[in-house]
């Protein structure tokens, strides 16, 4: 079975985010970029499927600028067989990305598409669901465990109420939770080999889908800084402050 894994190049999880002074967005100049952590889980799951003999080919796909090749090289180093870069200068919204991915699915005919449940840059949590709708495929979101059985998969999902196990038929869309697995580090020899693996570059415009943005970003601002705490002398003063200053009592 062929598995398609969507990966995204995002500002590294450990970078201190800075908002641009004109409020137009987040500063990404000279900032370390890495693979979206949820996508690492997605790729790791596909690699384990291949090790278990469930998957035969793993294709990594990303929508982004040419720099997103870095992320695809990481995916190839971890063990993806080949990669597709859909070149788009202006980052499309989740719907646009889902449309592009649906076209890739038509071409590649995978049995499973794995995506992160969200990307840590915009936290939209939409692309996987939209892709499922566009393809009219079953979807299993927020997966923390996946067991393949013939032409279906048993998925454990993390929900607000606890764990839910569902069985869905293939072909299907899976979105990952961080607890799905522990992603591997690429080995140096594999990083060298990955340089020789193929990356197909396709222009987003060539798919003929409507990528016009439907949202307008009005402004981006940093969360309000936490006010420094104060040390009170005694309980009476604390109660007084809670009543009269904080107004919570």
């Amino acid at each position, binding site marked *: 079975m062929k598995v398609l894994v969507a990966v995204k190049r995002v500002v*590294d*999880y*450990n*970078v*201190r985010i800075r908002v641009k002074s004109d409020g137009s967005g987040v500063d990404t100049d*000279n900032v*370390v970029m*890495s*693979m979206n*952590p949820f996508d690492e889980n997605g790729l790791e799951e596909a690699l384990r499927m291949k090790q278990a003999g469930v998957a035969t080919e793993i294709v990594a796909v990303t929508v982004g600028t040419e720099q997103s090749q870095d992320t695809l090289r*990481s995916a190839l*180093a971890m063990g993806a067989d080949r990669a597709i870069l859909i070149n788009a200068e202006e980052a499309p919204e989740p719907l646009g990305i889902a449309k592009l991915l649906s076209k890739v699915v038509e071409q590649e005919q995978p049995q499973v598409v794995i995506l992160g449940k969200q990307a840590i840059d915009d936290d939209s949590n939409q692309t996987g669901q939209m892709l499922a709708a566009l393809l009219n495929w079953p979807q299993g979101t927020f997966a923390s465990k996946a067991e393949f059985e013939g032409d279906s998969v048993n998925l454990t999902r993390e929900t607000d109420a606890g764990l839910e196990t569902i069985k869905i038929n293939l072909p299907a869309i899976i979105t990952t939770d961080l607890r799905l697995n*522990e992603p591997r*580090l*690429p*080995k*140096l*020899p594999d*990083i*060298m080999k990955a340089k020789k693996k193929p990356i197909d570059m396709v222009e987003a415009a060539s798919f003929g889908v409507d990528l016009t943005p439907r949202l307008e970003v009005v402004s981006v601002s940093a969360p309000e800084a936490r006010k420094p705490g104060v040390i009170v002398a005694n309980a009476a003063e604390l109660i007084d402050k809670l009543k009269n200053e904080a107004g919570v009592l």
Partner: protein
Amino acid sequence: MNILQQLNDIFTPERVLTDEDSLQNYGKDWTQVYTPDPLAIVFPTSTEEVQALVKMANEEGVALVPSGGRTGLCGGAVAMNKEIVVSFDRMNKILDFNSIDRSVVCQPGVITQQLQNFAEENNLFYPVDFGSSGSSQLGGNISTNAGGIKVVRYGLTRNWVLGLKVVTGAGEVLDLNHGLVKNATGYDFRHLFIGAEGTLGFITEATMRLTNIPKNLTVFVLGVTDIPALMQVFETFQNTIELSAFEFFSEDTLSLMVNDKGYARPFDTEAPYYALIEFEVDHESKEESALQAFEACAEEGWVVDGVMSQSLQQAKDLWRLREDISETISAYTPYKNDLSVNISKVPEYLDKVEQAVNQNYSEFKVLWYGHIGDGNLHLNILKPDSMEVSEFFEQCSKVNPDIFEVTKKMNGSVSAEHGIGIIKKNYLKYSRSKEEVELMASVKKIFDPKGIINPGKIF
């Protein structure tokens, strides 16, 4: 007037502790082998208070022990003889920052990590870093000239001290170097206080220097066949890219981390030693060069396998394999030695030390790790389960002369970065000549004529 009363007058009673818990807690550092017995613990909030205390101590002939984050590994901050412990926990503020000078004026109780975070918030970097930086204080770092994991590129704490305010044992307040970069006006007393282990006086303010944030720090962990190969790997990488760290640990150390604490192996292939290499990838060509260095080492047969971090998180996770060792092995009551020789002599040295230990104590398990890029090796002897602690330490101290004799012959140091304190006092002579030690005592006499500041430490 009685001493406690005088302390209450100088500090107000809530900043003078005499309860048993506090005496035990503040009377020791990380060594845990000495039984604390201080008279009281005081918490100054200003240079003036420290000065008043020193004057009183001189009059009363009572000893004072400077105390920082108490993560020291040589007993430097231990009080066993009714001393007054002077804790800088309440002097923990960053007082001033100048972005042109890139200098930060800090009180001595500022935690190392607090300065690191402050630097980052201001788009700058404080590069001294090690396993205990979440607890250790600048006053302690300066007094031990702490090193750590980035010495290869950034040097020791000494490199980052632009100025110091100190109260000497005689009670003078000295404002040393005023944060200047250049100042060729005679003896630089600042450097005497750096690494003095609190034996000359108290540091009550420090002006620290910051630098640029390194971009995209990337980590390799490599499996290496033996120590000579490890040194070849070091040379190869050093000649290819600027390194910010070159650390190592042995397979015995790694397997203990994996078995006891469930750390994940970086890769399946086992190797006798592992190198952790860190460098900045601010340009694609850097990564290319590092990969070429790896390839060269693999072709030579020095390296059997390796991984590379793909994100800052992965880099952090790999670092934990090295940084968490000290804490993980503390369950085995290790006998620690912190040794150094010239980098080029490491293979011969390690061999000889191992022989010295194995000859008489083959049942002891020896773990090696450390800052090998600085010629700095941490030798840890683990206590066998069946042996009593006191018996174990006694046995270990019998091995010491053998180890230190080798160290002396090779012009090495019996304490690379942890200090002498109490624990290495008897061994100072293996690294410093009789004349040197006498001169040290004379210097101490000048700054602390009555010998009231941290007596009995170093020599």
